C-alpha cells in the first residue's frame, strides 16, 4: 500500500491535486468548449425566426431522419463506455470491437449530416441564404467537425489496439478520448432539442 502511494507520488502525470494532468486538461478543454458551443447556440436562438426570406427551419428540417442520427450518436456513447470497461479489464478483443463500433456509429452520424447538408443545399439553403442558414450551418458544421475529429481519434486508438500497443495500462488514453466523445454527444443533445425539436 505504501509502495502504491509512493508510485503515485512519483508519477510525473499526477499533480498536487492528486489528479492526472491529462484528465484535468481534457476537462478544462471541455469547459472551454461549453462556452464555444454556448455562444453558437445563443447566436442561433437570437436570430431564430428573424430571417427575411426562406427557407426556414419549419419548412426544411427533417425530424424523423435527425432523430435517427441523434439516436445513433447517443448509442455510440454506450459503445464508448463498453470499450473503456473492456480496455480497463484488459479484454482487448472486446476493446477493439467496441472502439471500432463507436467509430462506425460516429461515422454514421457524420454520414447523416453530410446527407442533410447536401439535401438542404439542393433545397436552396446555404450559408449565405439567410440568418437561419448562416447560424444553422455554422453551429451544426462545427459540431460535425468535432464528431469527425472524434472518429479519427477513435480509429487511431483502434489501430494502436490492433497492433498490440494498447492495453489496460493505457486505459486513461481511452478514457480521455471517451470524455471528448461523450461531450460531442451532450452538445448534440442540446442542439437536437433547441434546434430540431422546439417548435
Amino acid at each position, binding site marked *: 500500500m505504501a509502495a502504491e502511494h509512493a508510485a503515485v507520488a512519483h508519477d510525473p502525470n499526477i499533480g498536487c491535486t492528486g489528479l492526472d494532468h491529462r484528465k484535468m486538461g481534457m476537462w478544462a478543454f471541455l469547459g472551454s468548449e461549453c*462556452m464555444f458551443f454556448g455562444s453558437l447556440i445563443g447566436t442561433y436562438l437570437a436570430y431564430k425566426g428573424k430571417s427575411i426570406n426562406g427557407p426556414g427551419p419549419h419548412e426544411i428540417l427533417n425530424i424523423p431522419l435527425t432523430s435517427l442520427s441523434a439516436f445513433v450518436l447517443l448509442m455510440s456513447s454506450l459503445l464508448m463506455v463498453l470499450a473503456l470497461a473492456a480496455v480497463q479489464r484488459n479484454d482487448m478483443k472486446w476493446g477493439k470491437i467496441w472502439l471500432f463500433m463507436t467509430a462506425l456509429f460516429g461515422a454514421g452520424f457524420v454520414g447523416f449530416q453530410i446527407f442533410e447538408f447536401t439535401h438542404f443545399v439542393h433545397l436552396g439553403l446555404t450559408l449565405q441564404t439567410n440568418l437561419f442558414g448562416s447560424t444553422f450551418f455554422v453551429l451544426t458544421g462545427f459540431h460535425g467537425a468535432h464528431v469527425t475529429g472524434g472518429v479519427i481519434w477513435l480509429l487511431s486508438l483502434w489501430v494502436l489496439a490492433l497492433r498490440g500497443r494498447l492495453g489496460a495500462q493505457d486505459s486513461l488514453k481511452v478514457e480521455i478520448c471517451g470524455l471528448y466523445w461523450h461531450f460531442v454527444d451532450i452538445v448534440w443533445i442540446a442542439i437536437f432539442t433547441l434546434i430540431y425539436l422546439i417548435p
Partner: protein
Amino acid sequence: MDSSHAAPAAAHAPGGGHATVQTYIRVAVVLGLLTAIEIGALYVPGIPSHALVALLLVFSVLKFGLVVAFFMHLRYDNKLLTVLFVGPLIIAMAIILAIMALFGAYILLARG
C-alpha cells in the same frame, strides 16, 4: 461477451472510479426512452406549446446530466473535475441567456 463484462470496472486513477457495465446499459436504456418520449411528444395533438417546450427542455437536461454523471464518470470522480466543467457550463448558459435577452429572443416567453 464473457461474464467478466458484469464485473465492476476498477478504479483506475487517484480519486476516480467507474460504474458497472449493467449501470451503463441501464443509463443507455433510459436515454433511449427519454429520446423516444421527446420525439413522440411532438406528434401528440393538443399539447400546449409552453408545456411541450418545458417538457423538451427538462428531458434534454436529464439526458445531459445522465451522460455527464455516468458515462463521463463525474458522479464518481474528484469534485475538482466537476467544478472545472460546471463552472464554464454556467458561464455558457449565461452567455446564451444574455445573447437572447439582448436580441429580444425567448424560448418560453413571447418575443419582444
